[in-house]
């Protein structure tokens, strides 16, 4: 709290490893942004890259990037930052022995070499336009000497970085305590942290988190369900922020009919009937709320290439749904199963709607891993999927994942696959848009999947705290302050 200048934030999961390259959780990303710096900094407002640990960078050619490393930066243990640290970090994480869990973040690099007392050179494997974005995000710089000394196990127990906060203590299952890095290098685009101490507490249970916030046990929580967020708003000691995110939920149908014999889902009329049977608007207005919107095309509407123009819209019409079912020869109703892995009440609401038109659905609520396996294995009739596009603002991060012929494509419509492929590989924006639009139209017309709505995110924190949320869902505590 403000009184002891300690911001306690709570979240549900505990990163398996505090080393930023060795976990894939949001909680890990948050720690990473507060404890480590990256070579570049991406301004969340403008989207522009700014100098951070690197003061300057030049492309020698599309496969070679030269960077100048800042002088006068020290790690939390007092070691000065040198180009060796940069080279070590990148070269180390590329080795298979490093066993990092987020390979895609670094494996565009081939190697990194020290080219002078203040410079390094990164060699790429292939041209990679997004390289600077990655250097400004998931590629923090580790202290070479310290890391070599203590090894990964030691490092994960007592991590050291250059960031605005340093880690004071960690305890398995409890969380992480951090203190402001008072020696933080001047001139950083993110500036010195304003709050003296930061504490991350793992509280797996959402209601406990809320109770803790209400009783002052923690100062900041997120992922508050909208119902509770509404209630918390009434509490004058709390501030609640709600915002839409890029996550979109959708029903993915077993079009190939693998999950059950003579699957009714092979019939487009049945899939359409399902689409008509669900009152997505009512769900958004009454259940989901918090700025969410109904989606009609299978992507997040703000993404590049995502459009619902010309895409058939299935508005709530249970009579029509029943008529379609009858037409398809299922006047007596059908039995299906639905698998889901989060927001159980949304899935339940869907089941409730389907039940009203005579589609009896059995819910199979699974952990994500099991859910994914079941869907890919063709054991699920209706999968309640959600997708957050890795926060990437381009439809290529969404639709092709589920319709581009990959593991998660259970439809395997060659036409759609071809159209998406064309969109993904083209460099012409207009052509891309056109191809994606065709694919999205076909998906909707065939009702291969039913897009539901975008998901909101709710933050709640003590009213003493001044905190701004970003669209990328990475809370930046170093920028927060007490009112």
């Amino acid at each position: 709290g403000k009184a002891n200048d300690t911001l306690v934030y709570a979240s549900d999961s505990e990163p398996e490893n505090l080393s930023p390259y060795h976990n894939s959780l949001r909680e890990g990303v948050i720690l990473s942004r507060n404890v480590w710096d990256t070579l570049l900094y991406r301004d969340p407002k403008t989207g522009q890259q700014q100098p951070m640990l690197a003061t300057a960078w030049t492309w020698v050619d599309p496969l070679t990037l030269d960077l100048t490393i800042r002088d006068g930066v020290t790690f939390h243990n007092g070691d000065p930052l040198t180009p060796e640290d940069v080279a070590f970090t990148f070269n180390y994480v590329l080795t298979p022995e490093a066993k990092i869990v987020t390979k895609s973040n670094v494996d565009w690099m081939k190697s990194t070499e020290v080219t002078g007392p203040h410079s390094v050179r990164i060699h790429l494997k292939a041209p990679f336009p997004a390289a600077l974005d990655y250097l400004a995000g998931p590629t923090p710089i580790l202290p070479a000497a310290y890391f070599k000394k203590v090894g990964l196990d030691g490092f994960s127990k007592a991590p050291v970085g250059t960031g605005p906060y340093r880690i004071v203590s960690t305890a398995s299952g409890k969380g992480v305590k951090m203190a402001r890095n008072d020696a933080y290098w001047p001139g950083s685009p993110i500036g010195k942290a304003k709050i003296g101490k930061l504490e991350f507490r793992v509280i797996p249970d959402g209601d406990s988190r809320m109770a803790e916030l209400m009783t002052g046990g923690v100062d900041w929580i997120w992922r508050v369900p909208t119902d509770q967020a509404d209630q918390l708003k009434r509490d004058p000691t709390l501030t609640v922020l709600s915002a839409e995110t890029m996550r979109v939920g959708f029903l993915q149908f077993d079009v190939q009919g693998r999950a059950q014999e003579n699957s009714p889902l092979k019939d487009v009329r049945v899939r359409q009937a399902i689409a008509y049977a669900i009152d997505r608007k009512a769900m958004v207005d009454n259940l989901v709320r918090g700025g969410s919107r109904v989606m009609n095309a299978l992507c997040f509407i703000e993404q590049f290439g995502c459009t619902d123009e010309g895409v058939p819209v299935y508005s709530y019409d249970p009579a029509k749904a029943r008529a379609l079912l009858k037409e398809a020869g299922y006047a007596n109703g059908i039995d299906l199963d639905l698998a889901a892995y989060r927001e159980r009440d949304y899935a339940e609401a869907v089941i409730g709607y389907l039940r009203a038109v005579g589609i009896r659905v059995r819910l199979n609520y699974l952990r994500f891993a099991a859910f994914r396996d079941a869907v890919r294995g063709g054991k699920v009739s209706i999968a309640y999927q959600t997708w957050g596009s890795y926060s990437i603002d381009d439809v290529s991060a969404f639709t092709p994942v589920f319709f581009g012929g990959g593991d998660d494509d259970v439809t395997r419509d060659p036409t759609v696959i071809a159209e998406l492929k064309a969109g993904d590989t083209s460099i012409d924006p207009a052509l891309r848009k056109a191809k994606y639009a065709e694919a999205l139209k076909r998906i909707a017309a065939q009702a291969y999947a039913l897009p539901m709505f975008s998901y909101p995110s709710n933050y709640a924190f003590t009213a003493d705290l001044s905190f701004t949320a970003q669209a990328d869902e990475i809370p930046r505590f170093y920028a927060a302050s007490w009112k």
Partner: protein
Amino acid sequence: MTVRPASPPLGTPAPAETVLPETVLPPSRSPAAIALRRGLSHGGFLIGAGLVGLIVLVALAAPLVAPHDPYAQDVSRRLIPPIWHAKGTAEHWLGTDKLGRDYLSRLIYGSQISLLIGVSAALISGVIGTTLGVLAGYYGGRVDAVVSYVVTTRLALPVVLVALAMASLVGGSLKVVVLVLGFLLWDRFAVVTRAATRQVRAQDFVAAAKASGFGAGRILGQEILPNILNALIVVATLEMAHAILLEAALSFLGLGVQPPLPSWGLMIAEGKPYMFFQPWVITIPGIALVVLVLGINLLGDGVRDITAPEGRT
């Protein structure tokens, strides 16, 4: 043990030839009749039987007594408070849940699930445990040693954890819950029937039956089982209660029965996010659970008391 004749006849032995003077036999009742008579004056038993009877009745007549379809949702009428609340409505006596389903109707249908789980888990575990216990108690020796060993091993396994792990691997559902609980909760049956069987077997009437040329089947069926039946009923009620509570706990942890089935444990789990602002969503199913389990326990205690052998205490 000393014996108290009803009316001590006097000294000189009666000539055996003549039938003894017609001794006035005290009023006789069958053991069942005695238990019933005792039951009717046993407060706990009556309360327990009343509660359980009521819930069984409600469960059987669910389609008749439930005011609404327990699955019918209306997301525009979510979280209506119960009728005693200022904002309650007579349409939904106990209000509605997060999807606008009638809470009373869900509660009523939920009783079916709790009873189903309690009864079937107790049946499965009862069959397993009683078989093991009776065999161990009757044959003793090596059979007994093996059974005791199996029971000890089973007791060493943490039930909740094992049930969770199994449910998670197979995927939770009503069937899985029943099977997992049925196959985990037999230990007390085994322990109790073993002890009871040993006790009965040591009695001379079993020896008499054996000496009369009864086979093992007849002895188990006619001499042993009827005499351990009351112990069995008591354990069955305990295990029913236990299974119902465990189902609730598993469902609460998300690995029990699956929605939209209105299991009471699931209702508590689903109501949990609302507990601070709409506390009734967890208090109502919670109280229902307590009442049912309490009723079953009282019934079990009552059965034990009223079937206890007569004797001075």
